[in-house]
């Protein structure tokens, strides 16, 4: 899920500017928390956003991971970082790697380019690549760029080949 600060209560206006992202993220984290304690993988701001949406659900080492990251904030001329022509192809490649999923592509993400494109938590996307080894295609809760920033909300379930007897529903990303 994306680290959208508008999801935090301290930045709530009378109207929610991201109702679809919020609904998708809430549905996904609720599902995630059903698998046990959640590890939040985000930068400082993203972790705050993730914890807010987890709404007190248990955190800690387990098999559930919430990766708070997003694509470029330079997708058009009204985006926070203005337009960078490299943003759309970059996000398209990341989006494809998430949907496949393609762990190797995520693990080899160009983090310097990602930083230049104001990608949210590139290190989280790299780590997600590692976590997605063995995962099947995701359930897509949301994909869009309403403010020139690429957001994804997706859920993956990993069947760990080294622990074949584990309930696959217990290992979630």
């Amino acid at each position, binding site marked *: 899920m994306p680290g*959208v*600060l*508008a999801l935090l209560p301290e*930045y*709530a*206006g*009378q*109207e*929610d*500017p*991201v109702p679809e992202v919020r609904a998708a993220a809430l549905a996904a984290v609720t599902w995630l928390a059903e698998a046990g304690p959640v590890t939040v993988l985000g930068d400082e701001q993203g972790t705050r956003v993730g914890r807010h949406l987890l709404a007190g659900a248990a955190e800690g080492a387990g098999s559930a991971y919430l990766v708070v990251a997003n694509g470029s*904030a330079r997708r058009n001329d009204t*985006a*926070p970082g203005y337009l960078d022509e490299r943003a759309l192809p970059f996000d398209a490649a990341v989006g494809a790697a998430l949907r496949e999923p393609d762990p190797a592509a995520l693990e080899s993400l160009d983090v310097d380019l990602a930083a230049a494109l104001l990608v949210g938590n590139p290190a989280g996307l790299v780590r997600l690549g590692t976590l997605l080894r063995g995962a099947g295609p995701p359930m897509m809760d949301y994909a869009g760029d309403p*403010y*020139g*920033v690429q957001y994804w909300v997706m859920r993956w379930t990993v069947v760990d080949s080294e622990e074949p007897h584990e309930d696959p529903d217990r290992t979630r990303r």
Partner: protein
Amino acid sequence: MADGVPAPGTLRLGRHTFGPDQALMMAIVNRTRDSFYDQGATYDDGPAQDRVDRVVEEGAEVVDIGGVRAGYGEQVDAAEEIRRVVPFVAWVRERHPGVVISVDTWRSEVAREVCAAGADLLNDAWGGHDPRLVEVAAEFGAAIICTHTGGLPPRTDPYRIEYDDVVAAAIAETTALAERALAAGVARESIVIDPAHDFGKNTFHSLEVTRRLGEMVATGWPVLVSLSNKDFVGETLGAPTQQRLTGTLAATSVCALAGARIYRVHQVPETRATVDMVWSIAGRRPPLRAIRGLQ
């Protein structure tokens, strides 16, 4: 805060109740031929009805209906005042049941008739001149506004009035009137105080009352301000009557920051936007919709 004075909170104006963080627009609707700003524009039924329709559409929570010019002018006795306002109150009650109906009168015999016709609030702009007015409010469950006039009788202008401390005088007079209303049986949450800019005051007094409005708010009684296009704005800026909106809104901002709850106005949308903006600056109202920098 004096013992027994309510904390800022719920306002109950007749049939209508408002939460502690709501600022209310009270739109002026004069059934007079000679009021200073509108000069008789809504004396006749049709234009008055149009004015009410418009201000309700603009979001005014309260309409303040007056049948007598505040200042010197045409003689209007109680019978004529009743003729001007009572049928109109009944019309507003019927057409706009969701709006608070206030009537600007100092006469208890008029108050009785308008309350029977559906008024929710008595705007006693002449500071308790008729002591029976509060009894009518209590009898009908209406709210009342207690104003400071410095002891002037109705429809008179100040002449060489001075105060040791105009704010202290305004607080003393309005809170005494509020206590009297309470003793007469008006509900605590239905009593509002108004320093009454320009009433019994020169421009320096009205400026000081504006600057120190927080002291009135600190009494705990909800505060109404009536600033709209008044002479203290005109004298301060050298602006004729029809060019006082900017100055009015500046004064409105100061009163809003201090926490005034009700704004008696000619221009509803402009005042609403001003008060909403200040309310948000003060942290009492979230922005409508915020995404800048938060994507």
